């Protein structure tokens, strides 16, 4: 990997817990992202996996400064994202775009496809004349596999997969270097899911894009990513190259996640032993200064309650797991 396109260092985001109506006061805070560091190279795809509430979407939004992180540093393409003022930020966002999960909610139903795709071109003053805009819109629609005649229709007349294509065309309008994809295929059927994944793959190869691919679906992340980070309650608990993570998962949480993925193979499913996790991930004060996964972990011991395991690489490949007993659980 050459010098990274995106570098996130120790980013933290705490949301206040607010009580009361007329006398609103903050009674504490929830730390959704708690000291996350990661890098993303040019043309690379980093998968960010975790279950709902782990902070993966919050982190994605912090990188774009759609929400302001509480602490940390974010460097994108050699520029300090958090130091940017409004104008600089707008300029910066040409180069980093986001695609949201729900293509039914993220497109304005009262705008035609042409207007939707042209909006970023106009806002960022990329095209000067109407004719130029129209030509670029047609080009973008073709790029994502839609036809020119789709330009005059409204979002409601499209299927979920087609709507996601419109979202991708919008994101690509400013010729970004980085796409943050927040669960881009989770709302889609298997067949449109495969279409969108193939499209994203093709676009990356053609345009040299970098992807931060946020998802809870491990099979999709395995398909699209070169490296994968697993998040649990605001922290990255394991970070590795794709094959290392899927073949030799080290953190018990990663192992449990993998064992929970349903396989489309009846024979295998009948004899499969799952790692069963107790309860659900709940953020509370007791996790401070200890391993956050401890209360649900099948291999937790005394030391896990006494201090928090750091995210450390065990080998030269950079495979890192935040666990005192990595690899002790075995997947069947």
């Amino acid at each position, binding site marked *: 990997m050459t010098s990274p396109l995106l570098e996130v260092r120790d980013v933290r985001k705490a949301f206040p817990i607010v009580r009361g109506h007329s006398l609103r006061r903050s009674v504490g805070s929830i730390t959704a992202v708690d000291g996350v560091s990661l890098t993303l190279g040019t043309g690379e795809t980093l998968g960010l996996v975790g279950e709902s509430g782990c902070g993966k979407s919050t982190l994605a939004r912090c990188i774009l400064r759609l929400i302001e992180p509480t602490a940390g540093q974010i460097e994108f393409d050699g520029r300090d994202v958090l130091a940017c003022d409004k104008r600089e930020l707008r300029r910066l966002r040409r180069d980093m775009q986001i695609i949201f999960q729900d293509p039914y909610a993220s497109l304005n139903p009262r705008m035609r496809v042409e207007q939707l795709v042209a909006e970023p071109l106009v806002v960022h003053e990329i095209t000067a004349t109407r004719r130029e805009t129209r030509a670029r819109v047609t080009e973008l629609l073709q790029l994502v596999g839609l036809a020119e005649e789709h330009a005059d229709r409204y979002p409601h007349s499209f299927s979920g997969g087609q709507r996601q294509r419109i979202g991708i065309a919008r994101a690509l309008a400013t010729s970004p270097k980085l796409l943050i994809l927040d669960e881009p295929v989770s709302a889609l059927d*298997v067949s449109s899911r495969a279409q969108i994944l193939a499209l994203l793959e093709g676009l990356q190869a053609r345009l040299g894009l970098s992807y931060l691919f946020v998802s809870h679906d491990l099979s999709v992340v395995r398909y699209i990513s070169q490296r994968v980070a697993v998040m649990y309650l605001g922290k990255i608990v394991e970070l590795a190259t794709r094959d290392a993570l899927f073949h030799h998962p080290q953190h018990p949480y990663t192992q449990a996640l993998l064992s929970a993925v*349903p396989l489309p193979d009846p024979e295998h499913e009948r004899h499969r032993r799952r790692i069963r996790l107790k309860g659900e991930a709940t953020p509370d004060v007791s996790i401070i200064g200890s391993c956050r996964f401890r209360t649900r972990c099948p291999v937790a011991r005394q030391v896990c309650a006494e201090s928090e395991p750091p995210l450390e690489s065990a080998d030269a490949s950079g495979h890192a797991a935040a666990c005192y007993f990595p690899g002790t659980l075995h997947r069947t």
Partner: protein
Amino acid sequence: MSDRPALLEVRDLRVTFPTRAGDVHAVSDVTFSVGRGERVGLVGESGSGKTATALAISGLLPQSVSMSGSIRLTGRELTGLGRRDRRKLCGAHVGMIFQNPQSSLNPAMTVGRQIVEPLRLHLGLSRVSARTRALELLDEVGMPAPARSFDEYPHRFSGGMRQRAMIAMALSCRPELIIADEPTTALDVTIQAQILELLARLCAEHDSTLLVITHDLGVLAGLADRILVMYSGRILEEGPVDCIYHRALNPYTLALLAAVSRIDRPLEKLRPIPGDPPSGLQMPSGCVFHTRCPHVTGICRTEVPALLPGADPGHRCACHLAGHLDGLPLDAGARR
């Protein structure tokens, strides 16, 4: 079909939604049966008519929708019944679990009251015994602290706990048939695994019959005995679970399997099914899948293929080319 006596028999079911643009044929000529104690999976993409089929069985389709054909539950015909009789019958004998527990639970009622309601209504239990029964149910579905959960409102629960509450409601009257419509689609993987395990365990314990509707073939492999594959309102293939996953004959089933990304195989390129399903307003002539099928020939465009038996017992496939696809690229790839 199945060797067990049929609990549910659906024959020539047609469901048509009138819309401003014209009639949408959601379900056309669907015939299948579900044996007592059997677990059947109904697979299809959105718009395939799988949910419309489920709603037709449970009597929850709006009245404006026209429906024909026959639906028999334990031998009794449901289609001709009046609304009250039907509600009485389905309320007590059919339990429904919906995809999104967030929108299918009443936000203004405690979870306990929502479970007690059907018990009082359909089983005529007293207030006290209904409460006792509801607490048992909450415990049975693995709800932590049942007594406390009983008095909580749904918004206080996580997605997994809400789905457990839904399952408790669906099970409350000990229904003979449980219909689960995308029961785990909105859930995280570890919670999904818990819920699937719970459904399998409860069905085994009570010898319940289960009809699971999903677009995800991964979910069904460990849960279903038999699979029905639906596309554009028609059943294109049905058979025992191993047969569908390993010896499917229909190009649509094969394409669906090839489109699934999975973690148990060496990585290979996904092969998406090109194009989109037909709109329902204009059904293609002949085989409904012919517009996207890689093997389409002349007869596919003109004649509707019948569901004909395959080599395995209980295996039926609606394709003019079934059994003649060996060696074709999609076929070979999907099987390996």
